[in-house]
């Protein structure tokens, strides 16, 4: 669960990125966060990951009150969150398998569990035959699927997808969001930031529109795919 209570963020440059934002995303929700550039979407994600701290208000993520969370406890928070970035951020010197297994190594998972869990997740995103490939040998869509597998592998409560379709073909975008929807149906909360209104219209669901640091619109809409 993600909860923002009267959250404001003012950067040292004096820019007000968020202004008294109140927001609650329940466990199992799928929410699109939309809005123009500079509206505060990235700030929202940085807050959830505790990359930055709120100037005022309280942020609660998966039971962690981020205002009170000490620096050394940040890894514990991040282990409950999977992140998918627009630019994939895969480690180029590691194979697909290693990129995914790496997350479990970080959390000190048993070797036996790693050996069974990683192929399962890679298979889930449809890349079983690419496990030994390096990221540079994959297409954009495939790389994003690896990133998705990495976000998924330690079974996080929440997945944050920061414009996951920004760097891939439009046709593949639907496939990626489809995968996210599938993951969501298994109970994982998904928070997806996007610019692509067509995707939002197609899939529908909860839409949070941020503009000039405030929530302009927060409603559930029906998706075109449901109409079909």
């Amino acid at each position, binding site marked *: 669960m993600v909860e923002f209570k009267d959250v404001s963020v003012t950067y040292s440059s004096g820019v007000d990125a968020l202004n008294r934002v109140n927001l609650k995303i329940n466990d199992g929700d799928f929410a699109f966060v939309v809005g123009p550039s500079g509206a505060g979407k990235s700030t929202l994600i940085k807050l959830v*990951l505790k*990359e930055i701290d709120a100037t005022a208000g309280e942020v609660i993520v998966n039971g962690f009150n981020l205002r009170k969370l000490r620096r*050394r406890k940040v*890894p*514990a*928070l*991040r*282990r409950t*969150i999977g*992140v998918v970035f627009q630019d994939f*951020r*895969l*480690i180029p*010197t590691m194979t697909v398998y290693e990129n995914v297994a*790496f*997350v479990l*190594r*970080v*959390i*000190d998972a*048993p*070797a036996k569990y790693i050996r069974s869990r990683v192929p399962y997740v890679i298979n889930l995103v449809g890349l079983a035959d690419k496990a030994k490939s390096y990221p540079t040998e994959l297409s954009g869509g495939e790389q994003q699927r690896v990133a998705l597998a*990495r976000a998924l592998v*330690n079974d996080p409560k929440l997945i944050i997808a920061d414009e996951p379709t920004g760097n891939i073909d439009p046709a593949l975008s639907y496939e990626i969001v489809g995968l996210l929807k599938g993951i969501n149906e298994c109970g994982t909360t998904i928070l997806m930031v996007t610019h692509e209104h067509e995707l939002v219209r197609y899939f529908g669901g909860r839409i949070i529109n941020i503009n000039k640091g405030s929530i302009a619109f927060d409603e559930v809409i029906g998706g075109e795919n449901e109409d079909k």
Partner: protein
Amino acid sequence: MKISSIRYLVHQGFKGIWKNRMMSFASFCIMLVSLLMVGISLLMAININRIIGGIEDKSELVVQIKDGISQRDIDALKDRISALPNVNTIEFYSKEQAWESMVKDMTKEEQDLFHYADDNFLPDTFRITVHDIKDMTLTTTQIGTFENVESTRSPTEFTDVLISIRRILGIISGAIVIALVLVCLIIISNTTRASVFARRKEINIMKYVGAKNSFIRIPFFIEGMVVGLLAAAGALGLTKFAYEGVYNIFNNDFKLWSVLGINNLYSFNDLFWQVTIAYAAAGALIGAIGTSFSTGKHLKV
């Protein structure tokens, strides 16, 4: 931390060296040159110290005993001098020994001339070496006040010069070593910083998936340590080669050194373990600490 995780991190450290081989090689070369410079400066300082020490050990204080005193008085004086804390060895040199030695060094003509001398005019003496040459003047003065001492003679001016040389050399070599160590640390930390900077993305990703700082640091730490140890091994080989070359020149071609009363240089075998341990410790520490420090900046995500 599980054993499998430790094994993984150590493996990652070794893998890192190969994956970033250009940077590793740059660090290796810089560390090798740095260790060589510091090592050779230290070895020079140690040997110069030994040479000066050798000269100092040979500096004697000569005590002339009053003529005509009894053997008992001579023994009493010897005991009194031996009791002084700074006195290392004391040797009695009789007037007969002195006479023989003087005649032996003479030319034939001089010997003929002295043949007619009816009396041995040379005094009995004590030849004394001291523990600490710095206190030689004080010891000389003390002995001068003893009963039955005719006079004392010591190379105080010479020893003062030696003491000054030793002090100045100590300061100079200390300053050179400190300066070199500082320069090395700066260069190495910059090289490792460049290496870490090249992998900041990797570190960044590790932070996002919830890696603890120690998990991120350990492979870099191992990588730095291994490169440092390799550089230490290289430096050890080169030092041995260079040192033995110089040592052989001094020992075989400049026998004059020992005639001058200067002790031989240390052989490389005398210093092998000290040099090996110092190089290994310095290489591993500088490598490991340098790398971990440079990683720190990128951990604040």
